[in-house]
């Protein structure tokens, strides 16, 4: 069901262009089909747009930076215009980044735009992912697109880290040192892998040029391809929509791409671009000149990665110093292996497979085009908040030294507290979130059955006080009634009708148990009969109020205010 838009007379100039293209490429059909395509409207649908626009800005600003950056580890003596480093030996990579910052026209602004846009890119991808997760937009038929999204996030993090490493300043060099340590921690092949990646002993002379190719060609290329696939799938599978009046699982209510979304999206691009340029012009990011060149024997206090690596830094800081030496063979550095390879590997695997995990638990194989309000799926919402809490604790731990410094705390105390919190806090977060969701479900049921309290009290002749309730608006009612009850799988039979044993019975039993846990606590939706009698009751109450001379407009003062 799309809003009909008046088909006015076509502008002559547009007519000419369209005709020109149509004569050559037969585009009329394509344009007609797609320019009128309807998209639903909601601010949270624009979070992914922020990611797309920051990616475009990254491509543009990054291209400018490639004109001046030299991915070379060749040692030179700096002779640029930044005096505190004049005469200091450094890599050509660092010197060219200084040149971009101080001697290239607009170079520093471009660098800051590129870096702020990179932080924003990963941030907006992450927030977009949260929106998709908590509204259940990943459900069938969009599981594949969720998987692509997970891939995009992973690649965005790698792309960000590779860019952060290119300037070869003291901070990024320290980051690469840790990266090389992570590679070294891979059991058995670590040393060989590190020699392969760095072309010898760290830091070596080859790595910067290799990283550069990966940063400007390989990962952006894959990102571009995946983003295209991601958007084409949104286009082809249509966008999900929030529940509302007239919105069903079989329609899309919204506005057409042309002119409404062309204008909105185009305008939003310039807002994102504008805010990024404004921030980049006013706020320093990564003052590489202040860090100095990377020399392996130097390090600065407060060495931190950009925000999206912070949680891995945190997991490493929380990890106890476990190490197993297998005599005569090798050392198993669990202190590095677990927090930097096993943990993120596990987390991203669960993230990518989540749609299938949930589908298996609920046995829900239906296609969903209507978004689910977070409260209507308490376990999913709870699991999401639980995962976020886990992530946040790792994230905070990544800045434990800055926190210790700012708040005058002991860094050891923070680390011990965070270790405990990492285990205790997520389950608590789950329980609290689930309880809040269920309470909200109760509240929704209450609203459907008893209407909205108006805050106006009425004194009946018997002396009884009642508060007048008004039925909820149609729009709200549609939202409240959009909830579909979560399905519960039947208990699996041990044998089928022919007496054949059910294969994998234990798995089916586990599935049934999980499905039961998933849906058992939900507040049952009011039945049709309950709804009808409730409406009757409300109307009765209202007519009673009218008999007492209460006018039912919002601004009527409470009749009993002067008793």
């Amino acid at each position, binding site marked *: 069901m799309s809003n009909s838009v008046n088909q006015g007379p076509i502008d002559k100039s547009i007519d000419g262009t369209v005709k020109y293209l149509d004569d050559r490429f037969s585009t009329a059909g394509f344009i007609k089909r797609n320019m009128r395509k309807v998209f639903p409207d909601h601010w949270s649908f624009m979070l992914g747009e922020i990611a797309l626009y920051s990616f475009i800005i990254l491509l543009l600003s990054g291209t400018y930076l490639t004109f001046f950056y030299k991915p070379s580890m060749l040692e030179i003596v700096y002779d640029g215009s930044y005096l*505190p480093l004049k005469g200091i030996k450094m890599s050509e990579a660092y010197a060219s980044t200084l040149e971009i910052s101080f001697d290239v026209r607009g170079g520093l602004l471009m660098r*800051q735009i590129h870096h702020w846009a990179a932080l924003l890119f990963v941030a907006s991808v992450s927030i977009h992912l949260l929106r998709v997760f908590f509204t259940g937009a990943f459900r069938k038929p969009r599981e594949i697109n969720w998987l692509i999204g997970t891939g995009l996030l992973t690649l965005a993090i790698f792309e960000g880290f590779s860019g952060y490493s290119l300037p070869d300043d003291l*901070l990024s060099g320290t980051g690469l040192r840790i990266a090389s340590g992570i590679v070294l921690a891979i059991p058995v092949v670590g040393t060989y892998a590190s020699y392969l990646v760095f072309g010898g002993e760290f830091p070596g002379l080859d790595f910067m040029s290799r990283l550069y190719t990966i940063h400007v060609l390989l990962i952006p290329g894959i990102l571009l391809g995946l983003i295209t696939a991601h958007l084409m799938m949104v286009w082809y599978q249509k966008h999900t929509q929030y529940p509302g009046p007239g919105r069903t699982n079989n329609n899309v209510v919204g506005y057409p791409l042309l002119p409404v979304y062309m204008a*909105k999206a185009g*305008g*939003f691009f310039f807002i994102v671009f504008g805010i990024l340029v404004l921030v980049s012009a*006013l706020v320093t990011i990564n003052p590489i000149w202040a860090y100095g060149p990377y020399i392996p024997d130097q390090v600065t206090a407060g060495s931190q990665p950009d925000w999206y690596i912070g949680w891995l830094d945190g997991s490493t800081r929380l990890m106890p110093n476990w190490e197993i030496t297998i005599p005569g063979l090798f050392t198993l550095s669990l202190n590095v292996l677990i927090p930097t390879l096993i943990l993120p590997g596990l987390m991203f695997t669960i993230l990518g497979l989540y749609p299938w995990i949930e589908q298996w638990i609920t046995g829900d194989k239906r296609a969903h085009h209507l978004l689910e309000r977070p409260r209507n799926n308490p376990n999913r919402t709870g699991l999401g908040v639980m995962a976020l809490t886990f992530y946040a604790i790792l994230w905070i731990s990544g800045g434990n030294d800055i926190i210790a*410094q700012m708040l005058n705390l002991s860094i050891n105390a923070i680390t011990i507290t965070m270790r405990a919190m990492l285990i205790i806090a997520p389950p608590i977060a789950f329980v609290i979130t689930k309880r809040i969701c269920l309470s909200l479900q109760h509240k929704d049921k209450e609203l459907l059955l008893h209407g909205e309290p108006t805050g106006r009290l009425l004194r009946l002749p018997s002396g009884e006080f009642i508060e007048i309730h008004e039925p909820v608006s149609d729009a709200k009612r549609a939202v409240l009634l959009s909830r579909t009850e979560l399905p519960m799988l039947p208990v699996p039979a041990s044998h089928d009708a022919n007496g054949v044993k059910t294969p994998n019975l234990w798995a089916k039993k586990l599935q049934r148990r999980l499905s039961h846990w998933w849906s058992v606590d939900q507040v049952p939706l009011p039945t049709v009969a309950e709804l009808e009698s409730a409406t009757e009751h409300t109307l009765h109450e209202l007519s009673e109020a009218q008999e007492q001379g209460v006018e039912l407009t919002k601004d009527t003062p409470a009749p009993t205010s002067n008793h």
Partner: protein
Amino acid sequence: MSTNRKTLKLSRFRKHPAAILVVLLVGLFTTGGLYSVGANAANKMTGREAVVDIESIMSDPASIDQGNRLFATGCATCHGLKAQGTSDGPTLIGVGAASVHFQVATGRMPMGAPGAQVMRKKPIYSEEQSLQLAAYVASLSPGPAIPTDEQLDWMDAELAEGGELFRSNCAQCHAFAGRGGALTEGKYAPSLMLATPIQIYEAMITGPQAMPIFNDKTLTVEEKQAVIKYIEYLKDSPNPGGLELGRYGPVTEGLFLFTIVIGALIAAAIWIGVKAK
């Protein structure tokens, strides 16, 4: 309008040919006057107080005696009547004048409360009293002396060399921009933004609290001067990138992103997403 013209407003003279000259002179005299007042109070370059002749105080028996008296009332409780140390405070025999001057002039001594680390605070003793205390402790046994004007002559030192030395020797605790950093068990390397050149020099030669000692073999006098020059540069270097967000590194950048930038963008998205009425 005619009545306005008669009133004695200063702005009447704003187009007078001599106005610029007068404003310029007033400005110059004010700045110069203020500067001379400031210059009298303390030598901005070194942090040594110009009115106090440090060397003569150090060798003057009267000031040593005065220092002894101050010590007996303010310090002896913990450090012992003869500075020999007690269970509450270390011995000060051999710590030298530089150490006493550093601790007292930065307000770290007398200590407020025991904790993981003694904090910098407003000094309790005047500069003269600090020097008298230093003279008394130095009279007990030789130790590192308060740096002289020649030792503190950092203005002509090499800035780039100072930066290199700072990154090799100081940044691992005080951080790349000298804003300080956390150490273990609640200890920390303080921010250097308040430290004067003389205090930095004294800290280097005496190694207060967790800090190592940088004697003249580890860092020569010229190298110490270069380090001081770099720290002075860090204090008020121009920041070409705009707001510096405290110079704490990517943590504050991330905080700025998730509050201000994301906040502004979501506000814009909501604004665009609002249904036209």
